[in-house]
Each structure stands twice: as structure tokens, then as C-alpha cells.
């Protein structure tokens, strides 16, 4: 749907004399809800991604607790079999697509432009579109709860189980259309962020001088770019089957349900790396800061990330060892799966080597990062056991698998994001999260996490099947299931502490009027060179980059004997946050208008095609409004101080001249 806006874009060159043809007056607010709805600022969009993900995290977390309560004792009565199917399906789908993916998007949106020394992403309005479309998809998916129940086929909704015949409610339709919409968001975001990394780097910021987090973002966006359309293709087939009586997965007509499995996992395995690589990037930023050493083997970090991205395309059928793909396929995918452990191992070794001999300090971000390295390694090791097809055949569809992917996705993924929260919180919000509560939060989470998911290894090897709503007394599953449920509540407690920490730290900072310096951790990359919280224009002057860890090299150098010495005070290196003369892209209503149309198309496909017409008109109108509207409002003041907004537009020539004088330092 975003096709038409790129190609038909107007160069702003000839635009200033033409009034934008808009139904809406151009939004100009800098504060209040309207400024958030119309924002195109990558930082605000990142914050909204994070906030939305946290809301969905609470929903997904409640679903997880329902699952664990149901399984706490044998013959649980809390959920019916049908409801249980819906709850675990929605839990998995929510956590993957609406929590971990948008959390990655949140960090990438906020940090990546700062790390490459840019003022914003390549297409600020498309960035806003990505967020709103993602939100629309998430709402469509979750609206199923209010409209007759959620999807019930597991997060991969295997064919032919996903057909109307076996799942007659609309749950899978909401799942399918919600994720199709979210897929548009991912695709638009991928195109946008790839362009940003390639094109928007500050002078001197060559690819091999980019921070590891930015590199991992780039790899993730390429994975999204190429993996999402595969899922999209599969979901279109499913949509046609379910809503328009096509025969793609109807086995009685000779269709092959394995087609869905293949397409899903061709997407699904790169998706695993889409989920984990952002946090690999985050801890690669955190660990060097708290080890007071540069990242060990930077090129290996980069190339192992790229290698994971490539090899992630050649292992998908290890999810299908039990599906009868044939001995040759099983052997080939078994080998490729073993190989993909190598670049991952390289990363783990590099993190350890970074810490080795460093002056370690164990602040909260560091604790979570070490948590990621250790917990992910456990999950990685159980993952290697899946590569052995005979063992995997035993493990398939047991709790062993559940244990494995929670160790990588929660122990690896979420731990890394929490590390990122504690690390970048001062940069984003201008106050620090309490350190003592942070440490308590970490240890409780670590204990709760291992109590919840550790026992699942044992349960799985004992043969407890996943996706089964109860078990009988006397199977030997009672004790560890109970322990696991207790662990869930400990995790919930730690998350409550986290939310309390946000609130208490904010109140403290406000009461005591605490402010955070630009560089509270003595950190290394460019985002720490701007004041906290980051001003709207990011950089007063775009830095010229000559090193990896540019900011660090501006603070520290070597003396004659090769010892590390400080060469400049941090206050002299950081920028002052004076954005006069910087001309930012203007806010716009069109992204949210376009996103607003999409759920109506989805509901229309399910209920009544007339809704599709309405939604379609909304989307098309938004596209044309978008094209007619220049990205930067010619009438907006040429600086970002709201007080000066009454500046007459015909004075723009002067203002632009001052902007250009201060381009590069």
C-alpha cells in the first residue's frame, strides 16, 4: 500500500510555491496528544513502539499466567480445552509479533539514527506509518477476544488445522489479517531503516565504523525485508482458503498441507533471528561500557551477525523433522542447523573476551547483559540438541521445546531489552531508573525465570506434550509443573518491581529536580554526545566520524607510553542541545489516517466487503494526501522553537542560510 508514495514523491525542490492540497491544516503542535499522533520524530515513534509493546506485554503476560495456572495442578479446571488453545496461541503470537518485534523496533528507531549521526530516518512519515500500521495490526489481532475468540492453532497455525473446517470461528481470520497488517508495518519499516543506515550516515561513518547495535539492526531489517513477504504470501493463501473458498490447503482436493509449513518456517526461522539479533546488538553496546574495554573482535561481531542472517535462511526445515520431509532433507537441514551454532558461539565468546580483564562494574544494565549471555547460552545449547534429528523427533511437541525457546526468547531476548531499558532510560527520558531496585528486579527475575522454564526441560524429556490443556495425576508431571507456576508469579513480581521503579524514579527525579548529564555511563557511541533527554533535532552539528566508538575517542587518547589518558572533559565534547537553524521534517496526519483504514479492510474481509470499500477509500485518500503534502512544511518556522512560529514564511531563505552554515563541524 505504500507503493505509490515513494515513486510519486515530489522533490521538495519545486514545492514551496504550491500550497499542499490537504483536507487537514498541517499540524504544528509540539506538545499534547496531537503532537504524538502526528509526530514523525524517530525518537517519539521509538517511545510509542516501546509503550505499545509494554501494553501488549502485559496482555501476553496475563495469558501466560492463565496457562500456568491451568497447568499448576493435574486436571486443571480454570480453562476449557478450547479456551486453552486460544490462550496459548494468542500468548505466543502476542509475545513474538507484538512484544519482542516492536521492542526491537523501538530501540532501532530511537537509537540507530543517533548512532549513525543522523537527524532522523530516511523517510520520517513512513516511519510513523510503520508504527500506526503495527498498532492497527495488533488491535485487529487482539480484537478477536471481543469478537468470538482468538486463534487456536498455535502461533504457526499449521494447515490443514487452520482451515474453516477445523477452526470454524473467526479467530484465525483475525490472527491472519492482523499479522498481514503488522507485516506491512514491518516491511515499510525495513525499507525505511535499510535506506537510513545506507544513506544517512554522518560524514566519515563508514559501515565498519558503525556501532554493533546499528549493524545488528541492519541485519534484522534485511531479514525482515526478505522474510516478511514469504509469510505474506502464505497468509494470502490462507486468507483465500478461509474467506474465499480457495483450495490451497484442502487435502481432499489434493492440496499439500506441508506447503504452509514450509512457507511459514522459511519466514519463521529468520524470524527467530529477527527477534534475537536486536538484543545481541544491545548487549554488545552495554558490555564494553561496563567492562571499560572496546568490544572484543568488532569485525567478528559484525560478520558473525551477517553470517547468522545468511545461515538463518538455510535451516528452516529443522522445525519440520517430524513432518515427513524425507531423510535427505532431514540430514541436510540437520547439518546446516549444527553449523549455525558457530557464528552464535563466536558472539558469546566475544562478549566473554570483552569482559575478560576489564574493569567490570555491575550496574543493572550489565547484570541483565550477563543474564542474557548466560541464559541465551543455555537456550543455545538445548537448541543444538534439536539439530540432531533423532533426538529432535523425541523432543518435538514436548515441553523441552517450550523450555528451549523461552530460554532464547525470554532469557536472551527480553533480558537484553531490559538491559537496554536500564542503559538508555536516562538518554530517552532524562532520569535514571533506580539502581538498587534495578538489581533487586534482576535477581528476582533471574530466579523466577529459571524456576519457570528450567523445569520444562525435565517435563519435556519426561514426555509432557505441549499445547495440551491438562495432564493426569500420576504421570509424574505434578511437582515440576507446580514449581513452574510458582516461577511465573516470581517473574510477574519482578516485572511489577520494574514498573514501580519507573514510577518511583520518575517521582524522585521530579521532586529532587535531578537531571542527567549527557553521558552518565562514560559511554562510547554517538547517542551519548547529545544532551539527555535527546533534543528534537538530535545533533546541533552533525559530527564527522573518524573512529569506531567515536565519542570515546573524543574523550580518551593515548599518551607517549601508549597508556589510556583522558584528552578532553566530557562536558567539552558533548553538544549543548542548541537546535537553532535546524529544519526538521514536519508532522503529518496522513500516516495515522492510512493506518486507520487498514483494520476496516480486515473487518470487511471477515464480515462485509462494504467495510473494505470504506477502508480502501481511507487508505487511497491518505496516499494522495501524502503525495500532495511536502515532507517539510514550507510554512513552518525554520527552527524548532515553538515561540518563533509566527515567523513569516517568505523569510525562509535567510533561515536556510543559517542552517547550512552549521552543517558539519
Amino acid at each position, binding site marked *: 500500500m505504500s507503493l505509490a508514495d515513494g515513486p510519486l*514523491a515530489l*522533490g521538495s525542490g519545486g514545492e514551496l510555491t504550491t500550497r499542499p492540497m490537504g483536507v487537514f491544516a498541517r499540524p504544528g503542535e509540539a506538545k499534547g496528544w496531537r503532537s504524538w499522533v502526528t509526530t514523525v520524530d524517530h525518537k517519539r515513534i521509538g517511545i510509542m513502539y516501546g509503550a505499545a509493546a509494554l501494553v501488549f506485554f502485559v496482555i501476553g503476560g496475563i495469558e501466560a499466567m492463565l496457562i500456568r495456572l491451568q497447568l499448576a495442578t493435574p486436571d486443571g479446571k480454570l480453562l476449557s480445552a478450547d479456551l486453552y488453545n486460544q490462550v496459548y496461541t494468542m500468548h505466543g503470537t502476542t509475545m513474538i509479533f507484538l512484544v519482542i518485534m516492536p521492542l526491537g523496533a523501538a530501540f532501532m528507531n530511537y537509537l540507530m539514527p543517533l548512532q549513525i549521526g543522523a537527524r*532522523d530516518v530516511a523517510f520520517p512519515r513512513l516511519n510513523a506509518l510503520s508504527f500506526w500500521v503495527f498498532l492497527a495490526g495488533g488491535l485487529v489481532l487482539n480484537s478477536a477476544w471481543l469478537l468470538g475468540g482468538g486463534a487456536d492453532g498455535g502461533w504457526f497455525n499449521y494447515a490443514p488445522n487452520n482451515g474453516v473446517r477445523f477452526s470454524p470461528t473467526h479467530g484465525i481470520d483475525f490472527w491472519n489479517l492482523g499479522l498481514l497488517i503488522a507485516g506491512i508495518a514491518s*516491511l515499510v519499516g525495513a525499507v525505511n531503516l535499510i535506506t537510513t543506515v545506507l544513506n544517512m550516515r554522518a560524514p566519515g561513518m563508514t559501515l565498519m565504523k558503525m556501532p554493533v547495535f546499528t549493524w545488528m539492526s541492519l541485519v534484522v531489517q534485511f531479514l525482515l525485508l526478505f522474510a516478511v513477504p514469504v509469510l505474506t504470501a502464505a497468509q494470502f493463501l490462507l486468507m483465500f482458503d478461509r474467506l474465499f473458498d*480457495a483450495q490451497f490447503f484442502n487435502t481432499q482436493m489434493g492440496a499439500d498441507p506441508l506447503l504452509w509449513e514450509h512457507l511459514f518456517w522459511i519466514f519463521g526461522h529468520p524470524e527467530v533471528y529477527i527477534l534475537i539479533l536486536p538484543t545481541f546488538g544491545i548487549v554488545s553496546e552495554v558490555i564494553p561500557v561496563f567492562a571499560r574495554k572496546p568490544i572484543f573482535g568488532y569485525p567478528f561481531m559484525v560478520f558473525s551477525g551477517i553470517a547468522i542472517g545468511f545461515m538463518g535462511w538455510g535451516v528452516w526445515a529443522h522445525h519440520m523433522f517430524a513432518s515427513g520431509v524425507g531423510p535427505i532433507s532431514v540430514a541436510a537441514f540437520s547439518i546446516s542447523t549444527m553449523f549455525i551454532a558457530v557464528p552464535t558461539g563466536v558472539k558469546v565468546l566475544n562478549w566473554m573476551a570483552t569482559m575478560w580483564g576489564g574493569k567490570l562494574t555491575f550496574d543493572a544494565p550489565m547484570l541483565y547483559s550477563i543474564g542474557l549471555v548466560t541464559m541465551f547460552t543455555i537456550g543455545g545449547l538445548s537448541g543444538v540438541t534439536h539439530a540432531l534429528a533423532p533426538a529432535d523427533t523425541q523432543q518435538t511437541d514436548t515441553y523441552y521445546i517450550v523450555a528451549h525457546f523461552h530460554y532464547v526468547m525470554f532469557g536472551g531476548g527480553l533480558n537484553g531489552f531490559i538491559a537496554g531499558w536500564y542503559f538508555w532510560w536516562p538518554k530517552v527520558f532524562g532520569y535514571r531508573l533506580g539502581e538498587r531496585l534495578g538489581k533487586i528486579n534482576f535477581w528476582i527475575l533471574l530466579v523466577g525465570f529459571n524456576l519457570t522454564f528450567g523445569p520444562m526441560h525435565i517435563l519435556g524429556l519426561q514426555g509432557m506434550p505441549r499445547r495440551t490443556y491438562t495432564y493426569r495425576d500420576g504421570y509424574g508431571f505434578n511437582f515440576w509443573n507446580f514449581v513452574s507456576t510458582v516461577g511465573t508469579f516470581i517473574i510477574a513480581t519482578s516485572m511489577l518491581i520494574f514498573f514501580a521503579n519507573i514510577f518511583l524514579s520518575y517521582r524522585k527525579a521530579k521532586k529532587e529536580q535531578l537531571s542527567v548529564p549527557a553521558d552518565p555511563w562514560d559511554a562510547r557511541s554517538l547517542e551519548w554526545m547529545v544532551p539527555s533527554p535527546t533534543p528534537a533535532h538530535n545533533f546541533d552539528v552533525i559530527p564527522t566520524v573518524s573512529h569506531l566508538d567515536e565519542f570515546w575517542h573524543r574523550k580518551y587518547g593515548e599518551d607517549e607510553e601508549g597508556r589510556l589518558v583522558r584528552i578532553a572533559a566530557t562536558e567539552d565534547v558533548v553538544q549543548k542541545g542548541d537546535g537553532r537553524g535546524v529544519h526538521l521534517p514536519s508532522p503529518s496526519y496522513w500516516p495515522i489516517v492510512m493506518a486507520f483504514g487498514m483494520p476496516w479492510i480486515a473487518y470487511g474481509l471477515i464480515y462485509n466487503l462494504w467495510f473494505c470499500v470504506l477502508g480502501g477509500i481511507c487508505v487511497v485518500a491518505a496516499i494522495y494526501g501524502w503525495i500532495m503534502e511536502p515532507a517539510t512544511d514550507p510554512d513552518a518556522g525554520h527552527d524548532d522553537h515553538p515561540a518563533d512560529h509566527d515567523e513569516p514564511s517568505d523569510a525562509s531563505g535567510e533561515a536556510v542560510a543559517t542552517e547550512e552554515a552549521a552543517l558539519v563541524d
Partner: protein
Amino acid sequence: MTDLADTTAVGAHPGAATHDHTHVTATGISNEKVAMWAFLGSECLLFGGLISTFLLYKDRAADGPVPHELYDIAFTSISSFVLLMSSLTMVLAVSAISRGDDRALRAWLLVTALLGSIFISGQVYEFKEFLNEGLGFTTSPAGSAFFTLTGFHGVHVTIGIVMLISAALLSRSGRITQRNAEAVEIVGLYWHFVDVVWILIFTVVYLIK
């Protein structure tokens, strides 16, 4: 969408700009072009999935006819030729605007759109013929796969036609000029891509038995 490079580009001030390639990006390529190529790379995976689905299902016709029995190769060859020639007229449109010839730009854009419409009409005719012969969307996996693949392509062509006509109108209202000639080039990239996808479909779906 105008890219942010404007805010950092030297000489991007509207009055001063002589042509629109002064966007300064780290690679020297405009953001729009990188974005379009990335998007087209992504489209390969989408069409790849649909083509593979068709190949897998092409003989699974249940009780209905196999698509292969129904092809009218002579007819499809002509409509393929028409689409191929629309790529030529598209290139001529790009070439016209790079010379600053607005009238020729609009003429070639509309000719391209017309050729695209002829192709789409041919596809509609073909679909109707197939329906008459008993191969419908819901008849069999083969039918579903055929109509989905060619229908997806047809939707892409239709979107392309709308883009071409919009570009012609924008040129008429003075919003596309030599200065932002690249907008036409990027519409052209999309159009050519739709054409190369049909090159694949014509061979893989129609000619190979």
C-alpha cells in the same frame, strides 16, 4: 515523500536548486531509489512464493481441467509482447523528462498506461475463458494457484497504471518537472519490475509444460 536529506543537503534550498540530484547521502544514491530497489528485492520473495505454489499445484486439478490444457499460447504471447513494449515506452518517458520535455513525458506515460490496460483487459478475457472452460478459483488447488499468481500480478499492473496516470496528472499540474525527474524513474522501476515478473510467469507458467 521528500527525504530528510533535504534538511542537510547543501544547495537544497528550493530557490537555489538547479536539479534534484543534490541530495547528499552517504552512498550518493537518493533515498527513494534505494528504498524502491529494497522493496523490489522484497517482492521477489513474494512472487517466488506464489510461483512455487503454482508449480507445486499445477497438475492437482481434482475433477476440473488442468490450467495447461486451457492456455491459448498465441493470445498470451501477444499480451506478453504488449507488456514488454510498455517497458520501452516507460523508458522513453523517463528519457523525455530527463531532457525536460514535459509533453513527451505525459504522452509516453499515457501510452505506457494504455499498453498496461490492454494487458489487463487480455487477462480479464483469459480469466473469463477459463471460467467458461470450468476452471474457477475454487475448482482445485491448481485453479486457486493459477488465479492467485496471475491475479497478484494483475493487481500489481493495475497499481502501476494508477501510478502512471497519477504521474501524468502531477506533471500537468507542474508538480513533476525536470528537477524531480527521478520520481518518474522510480515509477518506472516499479513498472519494469512488474514486466520482468511477467517474463518469468510467461515462461514458467505458460511455456514450460
